[in-house]
């Protein structure tokens, strides 16, 4: 029971990092990405590779994961600079589909469909962390650091610039703001921090494969942000906790078909997204309607 609860804490913390970082570009910069799982995956694969081939210290695995994701995110920033929300959704959807193909085909790095096995546990200053209860400290601390970073960014002049762009791109540009630069930086930051979640995920499960980094994962993270409340601080956390608890809640009710937990979970959050948009577009936490 204890291990079960700490396992949930870890998964919630890892997905909350993803939701918080996606909320950063969705809620503040107005970049609606369906490719967040790509950076999650790249972070996981990179840190797994570093842990197996170099050293499993998180001082190595996490920075390596962040750098890889930051580099790839430039590829996503490129179309984001050219087009508005509608069209960017298409570009990110394409990138996600392409990434899944690469993750399943690049066998020397990702292990193909089979995935990467026997990833060493996270090594924090020489101590190996593999018990869920101990790992929970690591994952929650990581979440707090990521949140603090994003929060500081949002309340800095950079964050004000982002919100200005979100409200009116041309107005921000006419005030001399370098819109493409600000957008690029926000995408890079979001991707690099999402890779932290990937690094934690790889060392926590010690096994990863492409299943965790598909379009479904990107959609799940997007649902967390939206259901919790886009552009709010607490929203992504609430959304992540709610959606990660959903499978356990479903298994609580015996009358529901237990073999269909995954499908039921998706139906519930799909329905949740639609109903919220009709009746409460700001999400659970958000009070006023957000554009």
């Amino acid at each position, binding site marked *: 029971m204890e291990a079960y609860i700490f396992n949930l804490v870890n998964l919630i913390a890892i997905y909350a990092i993803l939701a918080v970082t996606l909320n950063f570009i969705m809620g503040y910069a107005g970049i609606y990405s369906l490719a967040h799982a790509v950076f999650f995956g790249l972070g996981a694969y990179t840190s797994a590779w570093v842990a197996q081939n170099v050293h499993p210290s998180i001082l190595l695995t996490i920075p390596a994961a962040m750098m890889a994701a930051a580099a790839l995110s430039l590829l996503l920033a490129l179309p984001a600079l050219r087009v508005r929300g509608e069209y960017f959704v298409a570009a990110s959807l394409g990138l996600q589909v392409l990434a899944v193909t690469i993750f399943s085909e690049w066998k020397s790095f990702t292990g193909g469909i089979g995935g990467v096995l026997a990833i060493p546990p996270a090594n924090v200053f020489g101590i190996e962390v593999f018990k869920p209860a101990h790992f929970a400290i690591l994952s929650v601390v990581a979440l707090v650091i990521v949140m603090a970073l994003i929060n500081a960014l949002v309340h800095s002049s950079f964050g004000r610039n982002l919100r200005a762009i979100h409200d009116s791109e041309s107005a921000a540009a006419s005030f001399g703001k370098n819109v493409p630069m600000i957008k690029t930086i926000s995408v890079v930051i979001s991707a690099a921090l999402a890779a932290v979640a990937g690094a934690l995920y790889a060392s926590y499960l010690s096994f990863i494969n492409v299943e965790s980094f598909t379009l479904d994962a990107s*959609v799940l993270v997007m649902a967390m942000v939206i259901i919790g409340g886009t552009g709010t601080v607490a929203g992504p956390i609430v959304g992540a906790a709610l959606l990660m608890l959903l499978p356990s809640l479903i298994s609580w009710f015996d009358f529901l078909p237990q073999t269909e937990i995954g499908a039921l979970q998706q139906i519930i959050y799909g329905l949740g997204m639609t109903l919220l948009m*009709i009746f409460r577009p700001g999400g659970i936490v958000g009070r006023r309607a957000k554009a």
Partner: protein
Amino acid sequence: MLAIQLAITGLQTGALYALTAVGFSLIFGSTRIFHFAHGATFVIAAYFFYGVFGAGLGLLPSIAAAGLGAVAFGVLLDRLVYAPIQRHEGSFFTVFVASFGVGIVVQNLIGMVFGRGFVTVNTPLSRSVEMIPGVYVSPLAWIAILCTAIFLGALQFFLRRTHTGMALRALADNPELVRTFGLNPRMIAATAFAVGSVLVVPAAIITSATTGLNPAIGHHVMLISLAATIVGGIGSVSGTMLAGLLLGLAESLALLVVDSQWTEAVTFAILFAFIIIRPAGLLGRATAH
């Protein structure tokens, strides 16, 4: 020989892509609703056909079921989800998320009812015939191309020669002016959804008999529809048509160089190139900005 074979297959795929994408493009162009659940319309049409046909009820009832399912879904979605959202706010993002949610629900419901694996409808028409030595074409390829020509021809006639069609084009240009002329934008939007959803039906049926279906195919359909809409130029039905054909051909001809799992990468590469080099698309008037 292989090149000819692939070109014919590509034409077949491209024709179906064009039909599906034009449905989305028509809806998006005229109502400005980012109808992401268009992929779900495809899934509903395809599985309704598969279900009724599999129950042995014959071809015509199956086609009717697919058509009714698709149109009812499109029109009801417009009425029950998009209309209320547009009444109070209607930003792109809100509509997109609502639509996306519906798509997820449909995909999983279909998966629970019909299973998540690949299914195909077997017809005698799926069997390939040797056209010229080394080139095999199934009669379905010709049916696909013919269907596309008929449906898109009818669409052009509808848009240019009928009052409703002209009203639809007017809505795309200026919704306020439409209201001034005493037409009801909501009624026209409903028509756009009905027509756009009907266009998906032949593509869905033929796909179920050729490459097969799974409940997650809606995402692929959406990627193609979005890509064709953007590559063709937003708001240009003819552009989307051309782009659909182009994407199908490119995907198929790419097999000369790469393995089949990379076909979606080809779509993505073309989309990416257009977004960066020519965001206005092949025949687009306005830029994407």
